[in-house]
């Protein structure tokens, strides 16, 4: 059995996903970071971006994360985000509409958020 780590993806108001994984890739403020089992204890600040979790069953879970933290210790990885959505929860058409609206209004923050969600939704 391949080594695995336990992942908890939690948003402020709910637990989004939890399970075993072999690799987690997330975007921190200083660049993308990949965490595999046995990584050194780590605490980082997340950028808004997609998080890729390769589960131990061989599947891939992709989530859009907006701000938050990644912390890893004792083979337990926690991803804390204010807002986190799994790719299958994201309604592509809805996000596209949001993106257009954000562009029209010149709201860079909302635009970035919509882009991240769109990328996460289409990546899987």
């Amino acid at each position: 059995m391949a080594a695995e780590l336990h992942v908890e993806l939690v948003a402020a108001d709910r637990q989004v996903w939890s399970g075993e994984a072999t690799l987690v890739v997330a975007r921190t403020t200083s660049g993308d970071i990949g965490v595999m089992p046995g990584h050194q204890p780590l605490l980082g600040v997340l950028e808004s971006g997609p998080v890729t979790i390769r589960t131990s069953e061989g599947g891939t879970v992709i989530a859009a994360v907006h701000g938050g933290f990644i912390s890893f210790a004792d083979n337990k990885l926690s991803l804390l985000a204010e807002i986190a959505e799994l790719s299958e929860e994201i309604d592509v058409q809805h996000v596209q509409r949001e993106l257009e609206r954000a562009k029209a209004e010149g709201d860079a923050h909302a635009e970035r958020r919509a882009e991240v969600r769109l990328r996460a939704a289409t990546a899987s």
Partner: protein
Amino acid sequence: MGAQLRVYKRRIRSVTATKKITKAMEMIAASRVVKAMRKVSASTPYAQELTRAVTAVGTGSTTKHPLTTEAENPTRAAVLLLTSDRGLAGAFNSNAIKAAEQLTARLEGEGKQVDAYIVGRRGVAHYNFRERKVAESWTGFTDEPSYADAKTVAAPLIEAIQKDTADGGVDELHIVYTEFVSMMTQTATGSRLLPLRLEEVAEETAKKDEILPLYDFEPSAEDVLDALLPRYVESRIYNALLQSAASKHAATRRAMKSATDNAGELIDNLARLANAARQAEITQEISEIVGGASALADATAGSDK
């Protein structure tokens, strides 16, 4: 029907209508408590992980941060008071306000100037009526607070604490809310949120024999702490908002239950009085008839002679 009896009947009808209303409100509140409690437990994993992370950074690095270091001479403090928008919840709001006033008095006794931040229409009304200054207030979401609401509440507070005291910033942040202990018990408590006492936070979360690992910070301990502490404050405020909402619904449920019970008792008493009035009426009618008949009999007996 006699006048007395009619009055009783009318009162019974009106109390019955009131009882129906309070009963409905009791049931609504009961279902909302359950919902609010579920929200509290749903937010727990995030709060726990966040507290762990704060403890890890705080104990694992020697970084000094405005949000964790105590001012040598604290002169201004902010008090955030959580009340509800609507009443009908027994002593819920007055308890919270009382706790806030005690805390304010204590802080002022220590020579600090107190800025009041208030959530909930009841608290705002209380302060406005007494013409006290309110630094900022929010209303309209106390029944079902969302994380976005917690963020809007936290933003000016975090800003105030990061500012220098001379420029209108504050040195301390206290929060007064109603802690949800159980369905029957809710207590108004005041506690200091900032500056953080890391030892206390560590005690709350860490199991006794757990040693926190030495973390690698990405990008650096200062940056992580910078990003972490506002989130920590938000999450604490969110948790307090949720607990306060759950407490409010529990208090409403209890108040409405006793209102329903009282209405039932009142109906019983009124029904008894109405029965007595009806009986008195019948007795009077009978005695009137008997009296009338005997007077008539006497009169005819007299005329026969």
